[in-house]
């Protein structure tokens, strides 16, 4: 059976990884993207061809003209260009979908005269606060069964600024792994900024929509997925004015792109009885500080990569580069 999946933020970093991964099972997932742009890694738009707009909303209003450029993507799925802060556009995109993977965040135009902080807050408000509400509400109206909500490991970031975890992420490791308690998804939040606080909002909405409207909502707190796909890359802190965290932190929280994609796929495949849960992403990192056992137990998450495999790899050695695509490409 094919699951119809809408991926918001499909052209982003995680969106592209998810898109590549899920595209390898065309008989299992029928993908539609929703993004400000077309996803990278996906085949380019068919020349001059525009697929028909998705079903109009129940209110009978069609999508605005700018949002109807659904582009056929080499038989893999469609990408609808639009902004999650536009309810009608989101409503049209979710119609007929079985599941929504909501990755779209922190995007969209801002007032050019805004300071970096103001601009960031505008983006958060429009895409993460209003946009995430739009996605849940549209999903409810359309009868979508499951929403996978991309949260962030930054919702508990500030536990990592204090002992004992501060030492671990600085690379001052205790003798053996396990000598400290990892952050669990049930802990009270300590967000890194308003971006992370807006993800707390999304998780709270997910809890509510699951309890009240029966939608299955699975939250993934993504941790340090990066474009070069290596822990040798500093973990970007998304808040303006904050410097990037040291590389050491990445060895504790890095998630390879394929491990991130695996987690999304497992959430899509989880039994319908799983109505709400929250998982940290993470590769199999020796000095991890965020719990990934819960994902292993509940979903069978088995990360394929490990940050330690990238440490002090000899120049030109075989361990330095993580393959962009894992077993996914060999699957039939």
């Amino acid at each position, binding site marked *: 059976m094919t699951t119809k999946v809408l991926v918001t933020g499909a052209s982003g970093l995680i969106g592209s990884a998810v898109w590549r991964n899920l595209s390898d099972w065309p008989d299992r997932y029928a993908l539609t993207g929703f993004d400000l742009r077309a996803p990278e890694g996906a085949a380019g738009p068919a020349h001059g061809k525009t697929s028909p707009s998705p079903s109009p909303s129940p209110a009978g209003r069609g999508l605005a003209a700018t949002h109807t450029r659904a582009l056929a993507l080499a038989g893999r799925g469609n990408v609808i260009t639009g902004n999650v802060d536009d309810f009608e556009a989101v409503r049209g995109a979710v119609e007929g979908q079985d599941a929504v993977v909501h990755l779209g965040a922190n995007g969209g135009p801002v007032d050019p005269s805004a300071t970096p902080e103001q601009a960031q*807050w505008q983006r958060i*408000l429009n895409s993460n*606060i*209003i946009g995430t*509400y739009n996605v849940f*509400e549209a999903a409810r109206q359309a009868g979508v069964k499951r929403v996978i909500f991309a949260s962030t490991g930054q*919702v508990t970031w*500030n536990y990592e*600024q204090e002992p004992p975890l501060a030492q671990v992420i600085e690379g001052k490791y205790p003798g053996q792994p396990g000598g400290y308690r990892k952050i669990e*998804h*049930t*802990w*009270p*939040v*300590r*967000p*890194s*900024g*308003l971006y*992370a*606080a*807006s993800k*707390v*909002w999304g998780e*709270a*909405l997910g*809890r*509510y929509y699951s*309890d*009240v409207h029966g939608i299955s909502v699975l939250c993934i707190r993504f941790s340090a997925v990066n474009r070069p796909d290596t822990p040798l890359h500093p973990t970007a802190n998304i808040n303006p004015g904050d410097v990037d965290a040291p590389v050491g932190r990445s060895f504790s929280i890095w998630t390879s792109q394929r491990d991130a994609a695996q987690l999304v796929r497992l959430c899509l495949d989880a039994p319908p009885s799983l109505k709400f849960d*929250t998982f940290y992403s993470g590769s199999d990192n020796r000095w991890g500080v965020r719990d990934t056992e819960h994902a292993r137990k509940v979903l069978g998450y088995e990360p394929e990569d490990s940050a330690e495999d990238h440490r002090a790899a000899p120049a030109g050695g075989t361990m330095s580069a993580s393959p962009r695509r894992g077993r996914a490409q060999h699957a039939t």
Partner: protein
Amino acid sequence: MPPKKKVLVTGASGLIGGLVIKHLGQKYDLSALNRRPVKGIPCVQADVADLKAIRPAFKGVHTVLHLSAATHGFIDDWDEQIRVTAVGTVNVLRAAQEAGVKRVVFMSTGSTMCGYEWYEGSPYGALARGEYDRAMAMAPNAAGTTPAGDNRPWQLLSHRDPPRPDSPYGAAKVFGEAAGRWFSDKYGMSVLCIRLGAVLDTNKPKLIRHLPGWLDQMDAVRMVEACIDAPESLKFDIFDAISDNSTRWRDISHAEKIIGWKPQAASDQFNPEELRAAAGAGQAKKVGPPLPRWRKL
């Protein structure tokens, strides 16, 4: 005598604002930030959704008591919850931080947790419905921790348990707490959150489901006072404010331990049978958000 603490009250025209002005108006130098003028104290008239407009109200203020939120009639209105409760709170925190305010006392709500009443087999749901025998007979839930010495058969939940909002209002308050946590961690501004129980205009429960979470008006005032007076070294916390009701399921021991707050009233003084009859008379429509299907009252 030291000068009175300058306390700015947002949403001062509401029920809690009125109680604070009446009972704490002598103790603190109160001012208001409100859309409508507020009787008896100086007031900057502005909407918390407008950061620019509210800034002047914060000048020289020591503590902000942030009560303003979209409440009556708007509990389930996502637009107003986003505009007023969520964005308004970020604006208040930002204006306070910019003005060098030492503390924001943020009025959160028990609605951040009342979703726990909604799963099948929940003793909390049975308590909300007044099915006390059933609640007593239920096995303790795996969630939560019951403090030593508490003999309630169900496990008490606290601010350490994951939030479970029962409404858009509750979800917006979860966000407000998270934003407050960050302003505290980032800027060192003290942010104390009160998860307020059911405070009622008549000071009496109107529905049977008010009994577990009922909060006496004076207990509420004393909680506000305890938060304003707490030592400045207390940078962030969340306190459950509920009177000492025997049917309560949220842990109130944390507030006693940290700021010495102890409720003096209990909803045990009210007869549940009268409330059951009242609920039957159709009062359910007047108070609280619409209930999901399986939560029959």
